[in-house]
């Protein structure tokens, strides 16, 4: 579908007509462009969702999320809990790897035990509840965990849970595999040119059936304006992270649309309540929450891309109280009143706003608008932004926020527990904000051992309520990116940030 050069098409048509005596056949090619390259195909050794977005086309999981974010059978056809700490999976029969060998339970054991048991791989901490993958027979396994693990299915449907062929990895090693991978997915890797392109071919023997495309090309184009240029000149069919200011240009081209692409990332303000900070007063924190007009922030900074939230909840996550989604508190008059009650007249309270520059789209602008909104209720602000790694090493990791700090958190386990568990006393969030709440800690710990989904969701929801009411972390909005999709491709992005191209159809 890429570059439709009239001259080349004509030549191609003449050539094809000569070769086939009139029957015209053209390769169906789909080209995707992203700003980053894959680090390789060692699926256990990266933690980037944009990389996973491409890998899903090459490797299958046991269970996979559908467009609605619901878990669906993939390489496992069904599963059941056999005890509090064990789950049985029946594997799909007749699944072939790209090299023609058949997938067996041994491959599954091999693929899942590496992140679970090898602390040296980057994905280990997301799999370390798994103690063993027991092979029952060629098409049945039991995953044993170190206790009840209510989010086991979340773990094995994300980064690092692709199934790879044991025999091939044994032969070439992980280094070799990372260069020339083999999976069971609908596309197989033919060639990888670093920082340039990954060339994939449709895998005709794929268990879902052959994909609609002969070739899938993933191009690395770091510069956003160049990505847009390729999209509107027909050079690529799908381009991620289109700047919001280019939206009209893409729509106006007539050959592509700029489609909102919601992410799991939520922009948040962390309030340091430690020591003698004025933020130790709950009234001051509530005033800040009430002073921020989340919707106006979204409209001003991102041209309306994003959804206001009161907690780190987004569609597609399990066990999250969605009441906090698409809502916000804004009452500047009450904010002024609360500040007065706390003993601060107009412009008597001074606060610093810290944040990274260039880590997230429009991060500095976000802080600037927040500062304006705080000024409007009589809070004096000073903005300090740093390049990401300086911010990370001087402010974020050492837990030395001076006032208020901006961060964007995604949710790599796609579950509510992961969104709040680090607010427990002594954990990362609490070390930054200074907030500790025994009841909250108890709820989180109970939820970690509760297998019943409803009971667990209630516990997590109650924990969310306490956390949100503390106003120690103020949630601003869910980040929505723009993805450019050519009018010649029928495909809609899913809520889990994946570029699942098996669903894409030519049109």
């Amino acid at each position: 579908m890429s570059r439709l050069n009239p001259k080349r098409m004509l030549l191609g048509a003449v050539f094809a007509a000569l070769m086939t005596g009139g029957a015209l056949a053209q390769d169906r090619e789909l080209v995707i462009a992203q700003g980053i390259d894959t680090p390789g195909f060692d699926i256990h050794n990266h933690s980037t969702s944009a990389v996973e977005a491409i890998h899903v086309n090459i490797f299958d999981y046991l269970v996979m999320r559908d467009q609605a974010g619901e878990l669906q059978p993939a390489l496992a056809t069904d599963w059941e809990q056999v005890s509090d700490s064990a789950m049985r999976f029946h594997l799909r029969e007749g699944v072939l790897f790209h090299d023609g060998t058949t997938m067996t339970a041994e491959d599954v054991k091999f693929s899942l035990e590496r992140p679970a048991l090898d602390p040296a791989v980057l994905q280990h901490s997301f799999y370390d509840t798994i103690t063993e993958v027991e092979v029952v027979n060629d098409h049945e396994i039991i995953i044993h965990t170190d206790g009840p693990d209510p989010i086991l299915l979340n773990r094995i449907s994300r980064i690092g849970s692709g199934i790879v062929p044991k025999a091939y990895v044994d032969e070439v090693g992980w280094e070799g595999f990372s260069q020339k991978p083999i999976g069971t997915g609908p596309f197989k890797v033919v060639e990888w040119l670093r920082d340039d392109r990954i060339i994939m071919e449709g895998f005709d023997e794929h268990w879902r059936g052959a994909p609609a495309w002969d070739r899938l090309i993933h191009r690395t184009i770091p510069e956003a304006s160049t990505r847009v240029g390729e999209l509107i000149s027909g050079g690529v069919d799908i381009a991620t992270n289109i700047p919001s200011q280019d939206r009209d240009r893409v729509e106006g081209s007539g050959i592509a649309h700029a489609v909102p692409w919601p992410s799991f990332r939520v922009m948040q303000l962390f309030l340091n309540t430690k020591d003698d900070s004025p933020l130790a007063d709950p009234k001051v924190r509530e005033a800040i929450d009430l002073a921020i007009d989340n919707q106006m922030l979204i409209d001003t900074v991102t041209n309306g891309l994003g959804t206001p939230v009161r907690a780190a909840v987004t569609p597609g996550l399990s066990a999250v109280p969605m009441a906090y989604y698409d809502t916000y508190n804004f009452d500047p008059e009450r904010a002024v009143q609360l500040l007065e009650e706390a003993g601060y007249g107009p412009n008597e309270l001074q606060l610093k706003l810290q944040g990274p520059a260039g880590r997230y789209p429009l991060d500095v602008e976000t802080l600037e608008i927040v500062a304006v909104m705080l000024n409007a209720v009589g809070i004096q602000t000073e903005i300090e932004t740093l390049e990401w790694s300086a911010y990370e090493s001087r402010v974020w990791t050492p837990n030395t926020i001076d006032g208020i700090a901006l961060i964007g958190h995604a949710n790599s386990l796609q579950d509510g527990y992961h969104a709040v568990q680090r607010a427990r006393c002594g954990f990362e969030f609490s070390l930054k904000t200074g907030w500790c709440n025994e009841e909250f800690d108890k709820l989180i710990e109970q939820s970690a051992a509760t297998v019943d989904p409803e009971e667990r969701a209630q516990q997590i929801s109650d924990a969310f309520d306490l956390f949100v009411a503390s106003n120690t972390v103020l949630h601003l909005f869910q980040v929505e990116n723009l993805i450019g999709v050519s009018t010649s491709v029928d495909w809609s992005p899913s809520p889990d940030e994946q570029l699942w191209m098996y669903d894409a159809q030519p049109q």
Partner: protein
Amino acid sequence: MTNYIIRRILQMIPVLFGVTLLVFLLLRVSGDPVQLMLGEDATAEQVAQLRAAMGLDRPLHVQYISYMSDLLRGDFGTSIRYNNQPALQVVLERLPATAQLAGMALLVAIVISLPAAIIAAYWRGRIPDYIASFLSVLGQAMPSFWFGIMLILVFGITLSWLPVSGQDQPGAVILPGLALGASLAGVLTRLLRSSLLEVMNQDFIRTARAKGLHPRTIIFRHVLRNSILSYLTVIGLETAALMAGAVVTEQVFAWPGIGLLVIQAINFRDMAVVQAVIILSAIIVMMTSLIVDILYSLIDPRIQHG
């Protein structure tokens, strides 16, 4: 001459040593890669664990000594951005793309600057001179980032004559070559123009004119030949700079050369790759300047190296 060459090569050793130390320190001071690798989602425990596994928790001097002892054995370390591939291999595989772009940029620069400078010098103080001088200042003054995007807009998108980006399609090197060559053409035109003018004012040219030689013969046989030395020197040194990668141009055109590699490596704090690129660049620059100096003495016997 041989002594001179040996002395120059020996002089490179302390320079290279200084380069490694500087790069090593700057990279460590500006932050470490662990949080970038793990993302905001990581727990403090994960960060500490990975930092230890990568040896980044050791004192700086211990890290530097271990880095240097590996380097002396030819081991540049492994890339963290590219799943532990050898850093040197990751860098070397980019050389052909960078060489191709550098060649194109040089070609553009020479094809533009040579005639432009001659025209400007020949019609000094007249309209062709003003036009050539204006264009050469423009070439130098335009940010290559902006010029690159303009080229893409006009030739890639509006006219669809050339590929917008990447390396694989025929003609893909033309736009980045133009973007990169334009400013070099500006420098070279101005340089050659002034050295042509200098030579044209000398006595032997006046003699040649008085003898009634054809102006074309005077320009090409006498003036150009005597002005070309500084032109060639700058081309030589610019070639070295181009081989170190054109960061902005490669980024704009998604050209998979060394410039794109190094900017991505810096963003990811891929220390081994950044170090390898800078050490190789330093070697290329020093070797080129040595070669230029040697060629100098061959072209112009008045220059002697004792």
